[in-house]
């Protein structure tokens, strides 16, 4: 089931929650709306479900326009942030609720509920009540309840935000597995970029009611188109470069940052231009000596370090007054540096991403 969103606008008073947003979500796709709180992502999900009435624009499921249809006839399955399980009903009755609303026969309800509970590994807890379940189990019931009606679209509103970190990781993998097995079109809302990257086929990044960028997790990470996207999708070192020349033969931009020269791949640009570039922490490498690399070798000083086992993260002072973050995977014990140590670092010319040019 393809979901098409055309020019949707929604305001609350003077606040534009969604500002002319258009999206196309493919059938069977796991599509995530990612953004900071208040960016409009949840409002858009509620527009699809029918709980928020847009001021303008259209929503289609395939060819059918659904925004005039009342929410209870839209055949969407929604998983709420707080699960919204009916506390007075058992797990079975919660899951059967939507089927009973559809006047389904008793036996069919029995078999459909059992099947879906098996799918989420809750077949033994059918008689329990929501308050007798752990957070993770409640989450599964909410998912089962949404899936059992075989909705056209599965809508999930920050479903994992109430779980602890470990459970969140295993649940997101399970959700992804079930989604792929059923092949159900899914729109997923989260503010957690790591979760979005791990679970999604494609991500739309929202800010202030507008879509900033749409792409696969890797596109968004490696080729952010704006400063906002870069900063939202991971730790970002942003540097201002002044162009001093261009090497057409090797398509190399020559520039400097606070007087220190550097070279990077990129389209032709004229001297005097200012560039804003992105360097992810893991793109920067530590050099052992000054002869390690022919280009982009810099000298800095460690300001602080945090060691997490598999990785060590340094804050480096370099380019006179810039603070850079560098991540070193698989660090060796005798190579760990401490605050005040000098450090040589470098990066490949094809690494920097140009975010802005002026």
């Amino acid at each position: 089931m393809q979901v098409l969103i055309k020019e949707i606008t929604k305001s609350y008073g003077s606040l534009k929650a969604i500002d002319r947003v258009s999206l196309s979500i493919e059938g069977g796709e796991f599509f995530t709306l990612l953004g900071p709180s208040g960016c409009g992502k949840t409002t858009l999900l509620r527009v699809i479900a029918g709980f928020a009435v847009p001021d303008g624009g259209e929503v289609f499921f395939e060819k059918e326009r659904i925004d005039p249809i009342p929410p209870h006839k839209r055949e969407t399955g929604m998983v709420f942030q707080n699960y919204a399980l009916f506390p007075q009903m058992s797990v079975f009755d919660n899951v059967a609720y939507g089927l009973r609303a559809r006047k389904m026969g008793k036996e069919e309800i029995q078999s459909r509920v059992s099947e879906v509970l098996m799918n989420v590994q809750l077949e033994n807890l059918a008689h329990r009540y929501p308050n007798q379940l752990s957070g993770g189990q409640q989450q599964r019931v909410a998912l089962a309840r949404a899936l059992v009606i075989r909705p056209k679209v599965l809508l999930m509103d920050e479903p994992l935000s109430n779980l602890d970190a470990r459970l969140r990781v295993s649940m997101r993998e399970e959700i992804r597995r079930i989604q792929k097995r059923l092949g159900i079109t899914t729109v997923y809302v989260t503010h957690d970029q790591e979760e979005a990257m791990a679970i999604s086929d494609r991500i739309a990044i929202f800010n202030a009611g507008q879509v900033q960028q749409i792409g696969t997790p890797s596109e968004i990470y490696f080729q952010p188109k704006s400063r906002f996207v870069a900063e939202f999708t991971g730790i970002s070192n942003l540097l201002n470069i002044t162009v001093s020349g261009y090497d057409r033969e090797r398509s190399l931009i020559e520039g400097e940052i606070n007087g220190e020269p550097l070279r990077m791949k990129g389209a032709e640009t004229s001297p005097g231009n200012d560039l804003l570039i992105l360097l992810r922490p893991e793109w920067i490498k530590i050099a052992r000596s000054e002869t390690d690399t022919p280009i982009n070798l810099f000298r800095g000083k460690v300001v602080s370090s945090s060691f997490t086992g598999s990785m060590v993260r340094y804050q480096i002072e370099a380019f006179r007054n810039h603070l850079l973050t560098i991540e070193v995977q698989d660090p060796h014990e005798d190579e760990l540096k401490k605050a005040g140590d000098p450090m040589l670092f470098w990066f490949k010319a094809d690494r920097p991403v140009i975010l802005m040019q002026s």
Partner: protein
Amino acid sequence: MIRRYLNVWNIILLSAFVVLFLFVLYPMFYIFQASFLTPETSQFSLESYQKILSKPFYLRCLRNSLWVSALAMIFSLAVGIPFGFFTARFHLPGKSILKTLATLPLILPTFIGAEAWILLLGRKGLLTQLFHQIGLSTPTIYGWPGIVLVFTLQFFPYVFMMVSASINSIDRSLEESARNLGASSWRVFRTVTLPLVTPAIFGGALIVFYLSIENFGVPTLIGEDYKVLAVQAYNEFISEMGGNPSMAGALSMVLVSITLTITILQKYWVERRSYAMSSLRPPEIRRLKPLPTFLIWSFCAFFVFLSLFPFLVVIVSSVTKTQGPVMYFGQFSLKNLANAFQVAPRPIFNSFFLATVTTLIGMVFGLAVSYLVVRRRGPATYLLDLLVLFPLIIAGTVLGIALAVTYNKGRIVLTGTWMILVLAYFIRKVPFSIKTTSSILQQIDVSMEEASINLGVPPLRSFLKVIVPLMLPGIAAGGIIMWVTTLAELSSTIVLYYGPWTTMTVQIFQYIGSGDFGPASAYGTVLIIAVLIPLFILNKILGKDLSTTL
């Protein structure tokens, strides 16, 4: 476009406005207008207001009202604040029973309290005679001292409940961090605890003042010649029957302006200074040494006893042999009770019938309005929220007078029917229902409803199927409070009842007035028991007490 607005909820919204307009706003406006007309020629004049301001009699009524209310407020604070602190902070034997008993006076009819004190300390009172026999004279109960005594004993629980709730909402960490920063325990109390409790103290004080100034039964029965506004408005209304209710209207307006001022103070002064805290760890309950514990316990127990003793007296009186105003205490007789049930059961039936009808209507209306106010926020529902609470500032006698004069002629004639009683009760008590139902609805997340709608159940059915069952405890609690307070309602009844629809409260009131304490106590006992049983249900089955519902 029209279809979009023509849904169930808008129809309910509209009918709620119509009801409130017809039976609250319009009658109030009607007597407001009447207060500016001369009784004889129906021309605009300020005559009534001039009278109030120039005649010593009316000025005295105003002064009396303010005096008894202020005293009742001060004494209620003097008892209620320590009571609240003691029960919130210290281990006391039998504390939970003590606290439950302490809230009972709130729901017991004040005029029955007045009756009991007359039985004890009145001219022919039990204690008066006892003291007389040993050659001592007792202070008179009649006049303002008796009024203040009854008000204090029945209203101090409001102060206690608000103070104690406020103390319990202070997170322990606040006081602990003050101690940690080097403050002495007295300093912590002065600079942290007390400022946080102050709004509750003021809130309680205003409630006591309001309830005292609008009370009708107590000053009539025990005040005798000591006239207050609520009583005088009624007297003027009775003497103006058929004429233009100018004087009654003007006195009502004076009363309304006082209660309105109190409400505005409450709303803008107290509520702004209240700090909503979701306390995770309420303050530590301390165990004191035996002697201080005993002293504190005695203080609390003494006032609980003093406030409930009158009702015990009434119950005992109901099974005591009587002859007119003379009580033969110690001589058992079922004559009065038998009389109430066999010879004159009509008032009992009337009271139960009216209370039940009012409650049923009120529960449905309360549910609908709560939903609108909580779930469909908007300018219209905000206005509705204010409007339904408006009757809370209108004294019972005033509302009664307003309804009586508005609907005794014209297109809708209701005066002299039982329906006008139901209307008055409904208007006065429905805020209880709305308050309890909306507070429980606020705790139910909107997503619960949305989940049901999302699964294919239309909105109204979703509400009935999923939300209403979850709200049942709150709806029931609101219903119970409506029922018991309607049973005990005197002030609007006395204005609006007519012969066949005499209620228990009116019957008791009349018997006390004529000195027939035996029959009065018999009906009083029925009333007390009828009020206590539902309260017991509320407490035991629904696990709620009055402090969460009033």
